[in-house]
C-alpha cells in the first residue's frame, strides 16, 4: 500500500511538472535564438521523449539518486539534506511546543468545560486554529521584531548550527508562530478526547472504587484517550511540516520550503520532484508509524489486523 501510494506520487509528479512548464525558459533571456533555446533543452535532456526521461528518472530513484538541479547543478539529495538542517528542527520544535501548549490547554478546557473560563479557553483554541499561519508570522514580526526588536525578522545563521544558540534564536519566532496555530488545532482534539474519556463508564467506576481523579486518569483515562490522539498527532506532525514549509517564506529561512518555491519558479524539475517526493515519503511513513504505535498501545486494534479470521470464527 505504502509503496503503491509512493509510486503513484512519483508518476503523477513527473508528468504534471512536464505538462506545466518548460525549464529552458527560466534560463534564457530575451534575445536568445531558437538554436540557443534548443541547445539549452538538449543540455538539460528535456528534448527527449517523456518516457525516456521517466525511465532514466526511475533508474536514478532506484539508486537513491534524486538527480541534479537543472538550474544550479547542485545534487538535489545533498541540497535536501542541507535544507533539512533548518526544516527538521523547525518542524520538530514547533510540534513539541504545540503539544506542550495543546495538552494542558485542551485538558483544562475539557476539565473545566462547564465554567466560563473553560469555554473561553475552548473559544481561544477555535480562534487560534482558524488564523492562517503566515498571518500570525507577519503579526509577530511586526510586533516582536520590527516593534520591540526582541527577535530577528528572519534569516538563519550562515554558519548553520555551529552556534546552536544563534540558530535557536533565529528559529524562535517561526517556531512560536507555527506552534500557536498548530497548538490551537491540537488543543481542540485533546479537549474532545478528554471529554470523551471523562464521560466514560470505566472512569466513573474507577472513581467509585475510591481512586483519586488523578490515579483514575493515569491508570485508565490516558491510555484510552491517547489511542485516537496518536493518529491525530501523526497528521498534526505532517501538517506542522507543511506549515514550516510555508512559514519559511515569511521568515526568509532557506529550508525545504524555499527550495520548493524557488524550484517551482525556476521550473527546476529535479528540485521540485525531490522535495515533494521526500515530503510524500515522510507523510506516508508518519501515518504508518502511527498505525503501528496505536496497535502497540491498544491490543484491541491488533485484532483488527486479523479481523477477517475472527469474524469468520464468530459466524
Amino acid at each position, binding site marked *: 500500500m505504502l509503496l503503491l501510494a509512493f509510486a503513484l506520487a512519483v508518476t503523477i509528479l513527473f508528468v504534471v511538472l512536464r505538462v506545466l512548464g518548460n525549464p529552458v525558459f527560466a534560463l534564457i533571456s530575451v534575445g536568445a535564438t531558437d538554436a540557443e533555446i534548443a541547445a539549452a533543452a538538449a543540455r538539460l535532456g528535456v528534448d527527449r521523449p517523456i518516457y525516456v526521461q521517466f525511465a532514466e528518472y526511475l533508474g536514478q530513484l532506484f539508486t537513491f539518486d534524486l538527480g541534479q538541479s537543472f538550474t544550479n547543478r547542485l545534487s538535489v539529495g545533498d541540497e535536501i539534506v542541507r535544507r533539512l538542517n533548518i526544516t527538521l528542527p523547525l518542524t520538530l520544535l514547533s510540534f513539541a511546543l504545540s503539544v506542550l501548549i495543546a495538552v494542558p490547554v485542551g485538558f483544562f478546557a475539557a476539565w473545566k468545560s462547564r465554567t466560563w473560563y473553560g469555554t473561553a479557553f475552548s473559544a481561544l483554541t477555535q480562534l487560534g486554529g482558524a488564523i492562517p499561519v503566515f498571518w500570525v508570522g507577519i503579526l509577530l514580526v511586526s510586533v516582536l521584531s520590527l516593534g520591540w526588536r526582541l527577535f530577528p*525578522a*528572519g534569516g538563519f545563521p550562515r554558519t548553520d548550527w555551529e552556534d546552536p544558540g544563534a540558530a535557536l534564536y533565529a528559529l*524562535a519566532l517561526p517556531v512560536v508562530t507555527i506552534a500557536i496555530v498548530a497548538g490551537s488545532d491540537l488543543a481542540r482534539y485533546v479537549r474532545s478526547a478528554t471529554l470523551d474519556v471523562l464521560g466514560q463508564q470505566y472512569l466513573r467506576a474507577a472513581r467509585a472504587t475510591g481512586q483519586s481523579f488523578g490515579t483514575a486518569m493515569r491508570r485508565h483515562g490516558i491510555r484510552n484517550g491517547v489511542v485516537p490522539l496518536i493518529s491525530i498527532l501523526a497528521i498534526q506532525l505532517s501538517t506542522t511540516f507543511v506549515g514550516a514549509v510555508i512559514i519559511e517564506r515569511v521568515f526568509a529561512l*532557506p529550508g525545504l520550503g524555499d527550495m520548493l518555491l524557488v524550484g517551482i519558479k525556476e521550473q527546476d524539475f529535479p528540485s521540485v520532484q525531490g522535495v515533494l517526493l521526500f515530503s510524500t515519503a515522510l507523510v506516508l511513513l508518519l501515518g504508518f508509524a502511527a498505525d503501528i504505535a496505536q496497535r502497540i498501545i491498544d491490543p484491541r486494534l491488533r485484532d483488527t489486523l486479523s479481523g477477517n479470521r475472527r469474524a469468520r470464527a464468530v459466524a
Partner: protein
Amino acid sequence: MTSRRLSRVLTAAAAATAGLLVLAGCAAANPGSGTSQTADPAAEIVVGSQNEPTNLDQIFGGSSGVTEVFTGNVYEGLFKITDDAQVEPLLAAETEVSDDGLVYTFTLQDATFHSGKALTADDVKYSLERFIGEDSIAARKRQLSVIDHVDVVDEKTVEVTLLQPSISFTYNLGYVWIVNSEAGDLTTTADGTGPYALADYRKGDSITLDVNEDYWGEAPANGGVVYQYYADPTALNNALLTNAVDLVTSQSNPDSLAEFEAAGFQIIEGTSTTKELLAFNDRVAPFDSVEVRKAVYSAIDRQKLLDAIWDGRGELIGSMVPPSEPWYLDLADNNPYDPALSEDLLAQAGYGDGFTFTLDTPDSGVHSTVAEFVKSELAKVGITVEINIITDDEWYQKVYTDTDFQATLQGHVNDRDINFYGNPDFYWGYDNADVQTWLTESEAATTVEEQTELIKKANQQISDDAASVWLYLNPQLRIAAEGVSGVPQNGLNSLFYVYDITMA
C-alpha cells in the same frame, strides 16, 4: 493535588517563556556595529537582494543576478563598464586595433586567479570561445559572435580577429568574464581575478565574498561582502529595518520609501536601463498601421501611470534609449498624451469606431497593474482591451517564440538594446529597412561620433513610427543604512561593484 500539578506545569511553561525572552534580550542588547564615524576598512558589508543568481555561471543562464554579484567583483573582463556607462580597460593593459578594425591585440595585466594561477592569454582565449560556444546561452552571445577567431601570441598577448568591424566590441567585452581555463564546473564554484573571491555559496540564502588579498589592483575599501537573498520583498525590507542587511540593491516597492526615509535610511536614486514596454506585434492588423500605434501611444497618460507605479520617480522616455546612453534624444513628447490627437489618428487609419485587441500580460511584476491602466485609458478613445494574463513561461512560448499575439507588456532590462529594432524577426516584428541599415552601419562605424549619429537616426525613426509604446523608464532605487557610503548609483544592466562600499 491535581490543581497543584497543573500549576506546576504552568509555572514551568512560564519559566520557559521567560527564559526565551531573556535569551532574546541578550541577543538584542548585543550592539550591531561600532559607533565611530570613520569608515571601518574591515567591516563586512551585508547586501540584501531579491535577485538571486539561478546558478553561478554567466554562460549557463545565471541570470542578471550573477552579473550583480560577480561581474567586476569576482570575475573581471578585459574591459570594465563604469557606473556612468563608460568603457575602461581592466585586464587589457594595452589594446591595439588594426586599421581595418578587424584585429584587436590585447596585452594582459599581471593578474592572478583566486586559485593562485597567473592569468595568461590561454585563459582569455578559453573564456571568449566559451562565451560564444555552442553550449552558451549568455545574454550577449550574439553581439560577441562577431569574433572570428582568437590567437595566443605569447603568454601575455592575445589577438582577436573579428568577422566584421564592431565598434561596441570593447563595450561588450566588459560583460565577458575571464575565467581560469583550468577551472572545472563553474556553475557552483568560481575562479576569477577580481578583488573578491567566492567564500561560500548557500543556494536559496547567501553568497559570501572574501577580500582577495593578492588582488593585482587597488584593494577593496571593505572587509568582505555578503549577498543575502530574499524571495519575499517584505522579508527584505524587514531585514533592512532590523539591521540584518546594510543596504538593498534594488527597491521595487515605492510605497515603503517614506518609512525608510523617516527611519533615517538613505534613498539612492539612479537611472536604470529597465524600460516598461507596451509592445505591438507590428506584423498583424491593426498594429501594422503607424497611425494606430501612434493613436494608442497618445491615448495613454504615461505621467499618470508613472506616478501611480513609482510615486513620481523614474522618468518618461519616448524611445528605447535611456538617458545613460550616448545616442539619447529627448523624445518623451514625440508621441504626446493627447486623446483628441489619438481619435484623429484612429479615424485616419479607418478605425473611427475603435477596435478590440488582446493584450498578453505576464503575471510577474507590475505588468497586470499596467495592463489595467492601459485598458481604462484606451477605453476612452474607443479601443477595447482584453487582458490575457499568462505566466512568464507562456510568454516565452506564445509571444517570444511563436509571435502569436497582438500586443504584450514586458520590461526590457538591458542597456543598448535598441538593436532589437534592427532585427525584423524579433518578437515584435518591427521592420524598417532604414533602421536596419543604420543599426548595422553603426556597428561597423570607425568612430564613436559616427556610430552615435547613426543610432540617433534609428532612435528618432522608431519613435516616429511608434514601433512600441515606451511607457516609462524605471528608477534605480537603492536603500542604505546610515553610515554606508560608496554605493554605486546607477547599476546599468544589474552591474553592482561593491569594492567602494564602506561602513562607518
